[in-house]
C-alpha cells in the first residue's frame, strides 16, 4: 500500500506455559485513526498490547512501526519510538506526588537539575486539561483510584507520542471523566495520532472509534470499520454466538422487589472524616440497593465502613434490627456480610495462590474441621462456582495472577458468593468485565436477590444502577443526599442529585 499504516502487527503468537494466549493476531492502525480492540475477558487484549510495548516477548510474528520492523525489549524503548501506553491496572508510584508521576522520565531541568516548579506547573496544566484540579504535590496514594487513572492518562499524553495505546482506561472512571477522555481521544486523532482503544463499554467505542478489531480466544475474529458493524454483530462476534433475548433487551427490574420485606442492614449517619460525613443506607431482604455518587463521594468508604474494614467515628448500624459494630471484616463475615472491593489488585487477589485457594479464602473457617481443610468439599465448591460464573483458566491450581483481569474479578465474586451471605456489598463489580460476563453477573445478582440475597451495589455506571436496583441511594461529599425508589429511579434524577449544588465539588463540603 502507498502509505503504510503507522502500526502494523502481523501473525502475532504468544503463549504462556504452552497455553496459547494469542494465535496469528493481526492489528494495523494508520495515523489519525482510532482502532477499537475488544474481546471477552481473557481474549488476549492486554497480552497483545504488552507484546507490542515490549513487556512480553512475542513467540512469532512481525511488528512494524512506520513500515520499519521493530522489536521493543522494554517499555522504555517503545516510548522512545513514540508509543505511549496506559496499562490496564493503574501503574504508578504510590508514595510520589502526582506531578512526579506525570513527569518523571522526561522532566524539565535547570542547570541539569530537576526544576520542581516547572514540573509541578506542567503537571497541573496537563491534569487541568483533563479537568482534574487537585494539589499535584500530594502523593498519589492519597487520591481515589479514578484520579490515579486520570494521572496515568496525563502521563501517557505527555509523551506527545505518535501511537497511544489505552487498555481499559475508562474502567475506573465515571461518566464525566469518560466524557473528558473521549474528547481527548478525538483531539489526538485529529492531530494525526494513532490510537488503540480497549474497552468493554460499546457506547464508548462507537463514540470515538473508526475501526474495530475483535479478539476471541486469542484470535482475530473481526476487523472492519466500526460503522459497518452493529453492536449486536460486535457482541456476537466477541462471544462467538448469537445473543440471548435478555441480552438483546437489556433486562429491567419490574415492580420493586421485597417491598415489605424486613430490613437486613441499616446504617445511619456514618462519619469518618474527611470521606464520610453522615452517609445512611438501609437494605431489605432480597433487595438490590444502588449506591451512586461522583468520584470521591464516599461510596467505597461507606461500603468499607459497613463491612468493618475501616473504623467509623460516628453513626450507628443495625443488623436485622440488632445494633452492631463490626471491629473487623471477620465480624462482618461472621454476621453474613460479603464485600467485593473496587481495587482488585490491592484488596482482592492473592497473586501467588491458586484459583482454588483464592476462591475459598473467605469460606475457610467453614471448610475446616479441627483446623484441617476438607479438600473434597473445597474442590466441589470450586468446581460449582467456576462453572456457574464461567471462569476461564487452565486449572483450579493455576496461580490467580495469571488469569485475565476479568476472570480475576469473577474469582473474587465467587469468593463471596460461596459464603452465601445475607448481604453482599459489591464495589464496582463489573469494572473491567466484558459485556457477556457483565450480563451474566447482572442476572446472577438478580437471581440471588430473588432467592432472598440482599445486595448493596456501588457503581459508576448509571445504566447498571437503573437497570439493576430496586432503590438507589445517592451520596455527595460522603453524605446521603437522596434516595430514589422504583419508578423515580432515572438517569436525570440520579445525576441531578449527585451534582446538585456541587459547585464546590473538589473540596470536601464540611457542612
Amino acid at each position: 500500500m502507498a502509505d503504510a499504516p503507522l502500526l502494523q502487527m502481523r501473525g502475532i503468537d504468544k503463549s504462556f506455559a504452552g497455553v496459547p494466549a494469542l494465535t496469528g493476531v493481526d492489528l494495523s492502525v494508520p495515523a489519525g485513526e482510532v482502532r477499537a480492540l475488544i474481546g471477552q475477558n481473557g481474549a488476549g487484549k492486554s497480552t497483545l498490547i504488552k507484546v507490542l510495548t515490549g513487556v512480553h516477548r512475542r513467540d512469532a510474528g512481525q511488528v512494524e512501526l512506520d513500515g520499519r520492523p521493530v522489536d521493543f525489549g522494554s517499555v522504555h524503548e517503545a516510548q522512545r519510538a513514540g508509543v505511549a501506553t496506559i496499562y490496564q491496572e493503574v501503574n504508578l508510584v504510590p508514595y510520589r506526588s502526582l506531578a512526579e508521576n506525570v513527569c518523571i522520565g522526561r522532566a524539565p531541568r535547570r542547570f541539569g537539575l530537576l526544576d520542581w516548579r516547572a514540573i509541578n506547573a506542567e503537571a497541573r496544566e496537563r491534569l487541568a486539561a483533563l479537568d482534574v484540579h487537585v494539589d499535584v504535590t500530594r502523593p498519589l496514594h492519597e487520591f481515589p483510584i479514578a484520579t490515579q487513572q486520570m494521572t496515568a492518562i496525563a502521563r501517557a499524553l505527555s509523551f506527545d507520542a505518535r501511537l497511544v495505546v489505552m487498555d481499559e482506561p475508562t474502567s475506573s472512571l465515571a461518566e464525566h471523566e469518560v466524557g473528558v477522555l473521549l474528547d481527548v481521544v478525538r483531539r489526538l486523532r485529529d492531530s494525526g495520532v494513532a490510537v488503540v482503544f480497549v474497552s468493554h463499554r460499546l457506547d464508548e467505542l462507537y463514540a470515538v472509534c473508526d475501526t474495530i478489531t475483535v479478539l476471541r480466544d486469542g484470535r482475530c475474529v473481526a476487523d472492519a470499520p466500526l460503522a459497518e458493524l452493529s453492536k449486536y454483530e460486535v457482541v456476537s462476534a466477541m462471544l462467538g454466538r448469537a445473543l440471548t433475548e435478555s441480552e438483546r433487551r437489556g433486562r429491567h427490574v419490574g415492580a420493586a422487589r421485597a417491598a415489605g420485606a424486613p430490613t437486613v442492614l441499616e446504617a445511619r449517619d456514618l462519619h469518618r472524616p474527611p470521606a464520610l460525613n453522615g452517609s445512611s443506607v438501609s437494605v431489605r431482604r432480597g433487595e438490590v440497593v444502588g449506591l451512586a455518587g461522583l468520584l470521591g463521594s464516599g461510596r467505597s468508604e461507606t461500603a468499607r465502613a459497613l463491612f468493618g474494614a475501616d473504623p467509623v467515628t460516628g453513626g450507628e448500624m443495625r443488623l436485622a434490627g440488632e445494633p452492631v459494630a463490626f471491629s473487623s471484616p471477620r465480624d462482618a463475615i461472621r454476621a453474613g456480610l460479603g464485600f467485593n472491593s473496587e481495587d482488585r489488585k490491592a484488596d482482592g487477589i492473592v497473586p501467588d495462590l491458586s484459583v482454588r485457594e483464592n476462591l475459598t479464602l473467605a469460606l475457610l473457617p467453614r471448610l475446616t474441621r479441627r483446623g484441617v481443610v476438607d479438600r473434597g468439599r473445597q474442590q466441589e465448591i470450586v468446581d460449582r462456582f467456576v462453572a456457574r460464573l464461567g471462569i476461564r483458566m487452565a486449572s483450579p491450581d493455576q496461580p490467580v495472577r495469571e488469569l485475565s483481569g476479568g476472570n480475576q474479578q469473577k474469582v473474587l465474586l465467587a469468593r463471596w458468593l460461596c459464603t452465601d451471605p445475607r448481604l453482599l456489598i459489591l464495589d464496582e463489580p463489573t469494572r473491567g468485565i466484558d459485556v457477556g460476563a457483565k450480563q451474566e453477573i447482572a442476572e446472577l445478582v438478580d437471581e440471588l436477590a430473588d432467592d432472598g440475597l440482599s445486595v448493596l451495589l456501588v457503581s459508576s455506571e448509571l445504566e447498571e444502577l437503573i437497570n439493576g436496583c430496586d432503590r438507589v441511594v445517592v451520596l455527595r461529599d460522603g453524605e446521603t443526599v437522596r434516595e430514589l425508589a422504583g419508578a423515580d429511579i432515572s438517569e436525570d434524577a440520579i445525576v441531578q442529585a449527585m451534582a446538585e449544588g456541587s459547585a464546590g465539588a473538589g473540596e470536601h463540603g464540611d457542612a
Partner: protein
Amino acid sequence: MPETVSDPAATRSPESAAAATGRRGAVWAARAQRYGAGVLLVLLFAYNALATPNFLTVQTLLDVQLRQAAPVAIVALGMALVIATGGIDLSVGSVMAIAGQVGALTLLAGVGPVAAVALALLAAAACGVFNGSLVVRYGVQPIVATLILFIAGRGIAQLLSGGRLTGFRDPAFQFLGLGRVAGVPMPVVLMVVLAAVLWFVVRYTAYGRTLLATGGNPRAARLSGVRVGRVTMIAYVASAALAGLVGLVVIGITSASDANNVGLGLELDAIAAVAVSGTPLTGGRISVIGTLVGAVVLRLLQNTLIAQGVPREVAQIVTGVVIVIALFLQRRSR
C-alpha cells in the same frame, strides 16, 4: 523435591513463570528451579561417597551429617514460617542463647529437667511475642523489629551467664541433644518430626492457607476475614520457640551453655537454608521439605570442605558461590 507450597499451584507456577519468558528449554529451567537444591544435594552426596573415607556409614550419615544439620534445619523451619508471612527473623541466634542460658540456670537451680526445658521454651516464646507485637501491633519492619533482639538478646543471655560457660550434667535434660530413639540421634528425630508436622500444617490446615494468604496479600487476606495479625504473631512465636528448642539441643550436646557463642550467626545459616530451597523472601510461599534439603546441603557442603582440610576463608568463598548458584538455578524469571 522442594514441594513449594503455595499449594499445588506453585508446583505449577514455576513452569508458567519460566515459560512466560518465552525461552526455549524454559521447562528445563523450571525443573531446575524446583529441584535445584535437590540436585546440589545429590551432587555433594555422590562426591563424598566417592572421595570421603567411610562416608557411606550409618554412623557418619546419621550421627555426623544429619545430626549436625538438624539445629540449623529446625531453626530454618521456623524461619520459613516467618518468611512465608513476608517477614524475616534475625533474632533466632540470640533467642537460642537466651533459651539455653535460662534452661541451664534453672536446671542448676534444681527445678528439674522438665521444668527447666519448659521455662527455657517459655522464655523463647516470650521473645517471639516481643518480635511479633512489634511487627503486628506497631507495624515495625520485620528486619528492624528482630534486629532489636538480635542485638539486645545476646547481651541479655550474657548478663544471665556473666559471660562464663554454665556447665551441667543431667541425662534427662540433655536427652534433647544426646538422646537416641531407636538408635537415631534425638536432634535428627526432632528435625524429622517437626518437619512432618509443619508440612502437614502448611498443606492441610486452615492456618497453612491463611499463612500464605497473609504473606501474599495482607490487605486482601484481612478483607477476607483472615486474622492477619494473629497469623503473623503465631509465625514469630513458632520461630522463636523452635530456636529456643534448638538452643537446648545445642547446649545439651556440649553439656554447657555458652551464651557468648550459642547460635552465633545462625540466623544467616537458617535464612540461607530457606533461600537455597528456592523460597522467595517476598512472602506468600513456603517449602518445608525444600528447607530441610537446603539445611542439609549447606551443612554437607561445610563438612565436605572441612573434611578436605580446606581453610575457613576458602570454605566461605565456596559457600557464597554455591548459594548464588542455587538462587540462580531457582530464579523466577519475570
